[in-house]
């Protein structure tokens, strides 16, 4: 036991002390926070700064109302004719000239927009939707609805989703927040298992190619060496994960408060509501505005999600999934002489993980309670990813326990199997290994 501890210690320290680990650990949250900060900043800036002034030349007598100026667009009605307005456009303060000819409400035709620069898609749609609103109001008025009734027509609907827990308690939840967390957790899990599984493999190959392995196995059992390496690297992973969480939270908070003051956050959400209408007709803007949506949602409904449980489940399934896969990686590493030879063995190990990843982020997020989701979160090859994707939506305790038990049995199985291949593989040099060969090793007695 003492020997395993020594091995764990060496595997852990030799990795944590590496420059690349320190750089990765501190740079990654900065990068993540930086990217989010930039997205937030530009989204905010985009909303704030987009301002077009449009000169309107109207020959239209049908529309009684005028286009309404707001933060992002200002309409100025000119009294000159179109030709003159077009000629003076470049010298004027206006960006565009909008021409509204006389048209029937049924068939509004001949509307034109002139500009020194090509009007963007979003501006085009924005103006179109403004005009459409004018026409709709005009039509409503014609059918005898008064202005005051018109104003009353606007209602904001906000659905609060609540989930009834097994205990009967109602929990406020948010589809947005859940899927955001599910995605993040799924991607993180995939990354972690891959990253650290491959590190185990590399470690084994390194010991084999540097020929230290034979010196090592004369002091410790191959199984101890393998487990020491696997556990040591798992601790590196956990350390990195913890540091990332702490650092990301600190830095994100810092970045957000630097780029976007608290006042501004309020403004953004105000803007979001104002623009809700536009967003419907305007996909690109909608994308931008929903950016602010889930983040706001997450803050609001984090209380509804059991964050502690999610983190615990994540850590459990990270460890379980990592142990499950890293044992396989260790077996691969022991069977080859160099990293270039790993290809043929990597594929069968990678496939279920990739499949689990792809299905989890598509099928499972769409239908977290369906049978696909259920089976994916039970089979130990895919359960680490599928379960962390499902967990924010809520998973019955019996399902969670069952999946955990299967995963534990699964990794005991792979560790045992890998141990049998490993002990033979590490002492084989210069031979090209096949699956058949590996199976033979598996059946060897001690």
């Amino acid at each position: 036991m003492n020997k395993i501890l020594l091995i764990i210690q060496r595997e852990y320290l030799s990795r944590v002390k590496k420059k690349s680990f320190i750089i990765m650990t501190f740079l990654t949250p900065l990068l993540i926070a930086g990217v989010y900060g930039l997205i937030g900043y530009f989204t905010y800036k985009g909303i704030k700064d987009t301002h077009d002034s449009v000169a309107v030349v109207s020959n239209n007598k049908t529309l009684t109302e005028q286009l309404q100026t707001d933060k992002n667009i200002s309409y100025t009605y000119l009294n000159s004719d179109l030709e003159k307005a077009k000629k003076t456009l470049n010298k004027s303060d206006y960006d565009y000239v909008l021409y509204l000819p006389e048209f029937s409400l049924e068939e509004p035709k001949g509307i034109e927009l002139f500009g020194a620069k090509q009007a963007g898609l979003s501006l085009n749609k924005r103006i179109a939707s403004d005009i459409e609103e004018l026409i709709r109001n005009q039509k409503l008025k014609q059918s005898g609805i008064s202005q005051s009734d018109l104003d009353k027509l606007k209602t904001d609907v906000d659905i609060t989703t609540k989930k009834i827990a097994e205990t009967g308690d109602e929990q406020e939840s948010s589809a947005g927040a859940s899927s955001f967390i599910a995605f993040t957790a799924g991607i993180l899990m995939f990354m972690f298992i891959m990253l650290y599984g491959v590190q185990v493999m590399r470690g084994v190959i390194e010991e084999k190619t540097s020929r230290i392995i034979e010196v090592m196995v004369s002091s410790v059992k191959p199984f101890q060496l393998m487990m020491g390496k696997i556990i040591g690297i798992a601790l590196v992973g956990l350390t990195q994960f913890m540091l990332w969480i702490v650092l990301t939270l600190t830095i994100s908070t810092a970045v957000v408060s630097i780029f976007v003051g608290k006042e501004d956050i309020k403004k953004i959400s105000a803007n979001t509501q104002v623009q809700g209408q536009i967003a419907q007709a305007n996909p690109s803007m909608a994308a931008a505005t929903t950016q602010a949506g889930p983040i706001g949602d997450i803050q609001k409904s984090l209380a509804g999600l059991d964050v502690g449980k999610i983190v615990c489940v994540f850590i459990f399934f990270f460890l379980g999934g990592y142990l499950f896969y890293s044992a396989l990686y260790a077996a691969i590493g022991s069977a080859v002489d160099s990293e270039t030879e790993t290809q043929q063995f990597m594929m069968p190990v990678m496939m279920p993980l990739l499949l689990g990843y792809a299905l989890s982020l598509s099928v499972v997020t769409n239908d977290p309670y369906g049978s696909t989701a259920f089976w994916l979160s039970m089979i130990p090859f895919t359960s680490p990813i599928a379960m962390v994707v499902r967990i924010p939506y809520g998973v019955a305790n019996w399902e969670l326990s069952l999946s955990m038990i299967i995963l534990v049995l699964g990794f005991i199985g792979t560790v045992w199997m890998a141990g049998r291949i490993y002990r033979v593989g590490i002492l084989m040099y210069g031979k090209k290994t096949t699956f058949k060969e590996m199976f033979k090793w598996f059946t060897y007695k001690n």
Partner: protein
Amino acid sequence: MLSVRNIVKQYATHRALDNVSLEVEKGKIFGLLGPNGAGKTSLIRIITQITAPDSGDVFLNGERLNTKHISQIGYLPEERGLYKKMEIGEQVLYLSKLKGLHSSEATKRIRYWFEKLEMKDWWNKKVEDLSKGMQQKVQFVATVLHQPELIILDEPFSGFDPVNADIIKNEILELNKNGATFIFSTHRMESVEELCDNIALINKSQKILDGAVDDIKASYRSNTYWVEYEGNYTLSNNEVFQVLQTEVVKEHTLVKLKLQENRTANEALIQLLPHVNIHRLDEVIPTMNDIFIEKVKGQNHE
């Protein structure tokens, strides 16, 4: 001290060791010889508990081999290496701690050995910055640091320049004088004759020869002698000896004689003395190399 009894080791279709037994006495240097693939490494791996035999037993000091013995054995494998990115001092410390040594004791001993083998400044160097010979020295230190009773060296001199090989040879002899038992696995027969007290020869998974080096050589005596005398008197076969070869070098004649059965060198001399002035009489003793080749070739022809 070490007793290997009826070891059998089977790998799928290949039998690596077939009923091999041998005894290594305490304080001796034992040579384990054999061509490539004969099963030497398999046997060593069983003694170092890297693998277990299918049948048969190994006893160390009368006790069946168990995990406790790991700290009493030092093993320098033929395929050996070190962690490339680790510092030398740290690395040797790690390896000796795995053998059950305490940190402080290990540090003390490493300093002693580093001083002794002129490696003092190496503590903080990384393995990748050392030459192959230097790495070999580090590995040797790591092998003997925990003061094992039994030290197994697989081709210990490969990769050493003559100067360092000599240093290591002297260290081996000194450790041996202080009571350590050695097992040498090697192809280099000159080092066998120089160092080993006893040998075992393994070929095709079986032990085909073992015993004290002197006894083995004695048993391979062919009753052949070189005789050198003045003048060019010609000898011919008689009832005492047979003439195998005659060479004339300047004033002297060299003759290779093979004694007839149950005849002694003295009888041959009696035959010669009346005729010639004898300068020299040497028995032709086969080298370990000759014996090795003869034995292995002989078996392979069967």
